[in-house]
């Protein structure tokens, strides 16, 4: 209904603009598609182990924007930061003989480990759910496809909801529906929240431009998140050289145990 009203409101302007295309100083009718540009100060973020979360600011600009559409707020921008993708398994506990145990599980294929979204307004008021699902924008619209055949399709919805809820509650998925603000008529600034437990690896910044609820342009830009510091060096060693790491653990144990027996020896 709201969309219909909006369209209805615009109709007189469009009707006016259309026949006299060349003379109109502004408007979609000029035939040039709106462009979208984004940029950050860096393509790599280094995070120390005491990282407690931060905001990432991304600047962007609309080019060839229609002044009128801008004035009445018909442009919407959504900026997302998608973490590296991996399989994710959701498990559900049930009481079995009085004990809580995992009884059911569902694995989703290749979902982003983290997802942060900033938009000019509630994304469900920007576009309709089916088209958001189609482009996979928004926490509720990310593609969560189960691996393998699931006989009980009702279960999938339940597990998808649980997945989103858990991800939101541990901060890996975040949304800020007023995170994108226009600083001038065509320049916008998006603040994305980086959670404290952000995974390292290749992230992807994606910006989507909507005009009257239609996706008209999008841009993407890789962003590498690198963890630094001694703790990360340890994690890397544990995964890259596990045998040497294990040997070092044993060596420390031997030195500690032996050392104590020498230091505390009663002679």
């Amino acid at each position, binding site marked *: 209904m709201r969309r219909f009203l909006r369209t209805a409101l615009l109709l007189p302007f469009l009707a006016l603009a259309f026949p006299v295309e060349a003379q109109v100083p502004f408007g979609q009718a000029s035939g040039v598609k709106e462009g979208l540009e984004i940029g950050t100060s860096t393509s790599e973020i280094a995070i120390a182990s005491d990282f407690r979360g931060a905001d990432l600011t991304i600047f962007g600009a609309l080019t060839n924007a229609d002044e009128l559409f801008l004035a009445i707020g018909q442009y919407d921008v959504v900026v997302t930061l998608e973490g590296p993708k991996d399989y994710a398994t*959701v498990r*559900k506990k049930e009481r079995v003989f009085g004990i809580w145990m995992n009884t059911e*599980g569902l*694995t989703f294929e290749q979902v982003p480990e983290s997802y942060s979204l900033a938009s000019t307004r509630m994304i469900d008021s920007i576009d309709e759910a089916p088209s958001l699902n189609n482009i996979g924008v928004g926490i509720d619209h990310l593609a969560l496809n189960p691996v393998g055949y699931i006989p009980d399709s009702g279960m999938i919805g339940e597990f998808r909801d*649980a997945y989103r809820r858990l991800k939101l509650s541990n901060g890996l998925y975040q949304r800020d529906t007023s995170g994108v603000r226009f600083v001038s008529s065509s320049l916008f600034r998006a603040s994305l929240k980086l959670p404290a437990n952000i995974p390292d690896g290749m992230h992807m910044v994606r910006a989507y431009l909507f005009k009257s609820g239609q996706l008209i342009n999008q841009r993407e830009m890789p962003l590498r998140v690198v963890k630094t510091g001694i703790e990360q060096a340890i994690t890397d060693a544990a995964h890259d050289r*596990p045998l040497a790491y294990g040997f070092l653990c044993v060596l420390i144990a*031997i030195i500690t145990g032996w050392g104590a027996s020498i230091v505390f020896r009663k002679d």
Partner: protein
Amino acid sequence: MTVYLPIAELSVNIFIILGMGAAVGFLSGMFGVGGGFLITPLLIFYNIPPVVAVATGANQVVASSISGAITHFRRGTLDMKLGSVLLVGGLAGATAGVWVFSWLRRIGQLDLFISLLYVVLLSSIGALMLQESVRAMRRAKNNNPLPIKRPGQHNWVHRLPLKMRFKKSKIYLSAIPIVGLGFGIGVLTSIMGVGGGFIMVPAMIYLLRIPTNVVVGTSLFQIIFVTAYTTMVQAATNYSVDIVLATILMVAGVIGAQYGVRVGQKLRGEQLRALLALLVLAVGIRLAVGLIVTPNDVYSVAVGGMSY
């Protein structure tokens, strides 16, 4: 002061970990136990993921057992041949255990399995120890002498084939039950992060009838190698040994143990054993409660792999 544990992926208060290590070290020195069966549940109570708690627990046992083994080696109360036969079983058991561990982790039942094993083990051992110490206290009160057990009698274990002679222990025994015992302990080491001395020592004395004087040293010999091996294998397959956590625990543990030994030598045995039994029972009950109470969230997410 907080310290970040890179493998457990959480920040902890260093003083709590130091206190935990020192307290368990103190108890292990006092009672002559490795302490793995206390440290692992304590870490789990402190929200360390069970996967990390178990693997790191095994690493910690290496440090807490080594000084004891050195002492026994110097005194000559360590049967290398017997220890090596135990070790053969232990290494095989630890390998099998890590395989089961990874499989349980993949199907999402590892945490439950670890808790269940601990509940069963701690409650049965706690109950047995309590019963024994109460009996001993009553005996001491009535001034009754200890009934003398005759270790010379043979049981079914001594009719098994593949007999070997162990000179230091002065026994002639089949290798099958020794390897079997080592295997079982090895499985427990990799799944529970314990040395297993609290099972191995009674089994060697009562089941295999090995003379008491070599039992502790020989079991420590086996424990060191099996826990060291388990640490390596856990590090290589599950990436779950937290070197920061292990180091804090070990340093606090070996210092605590020295004081534990001194206090243990001064105090009465029965009361101490009753106290340890109560502590073991309390840890077991606390774990059992964790299995029964309704969790905050019945759902959980695990990232990575195809089905884990």
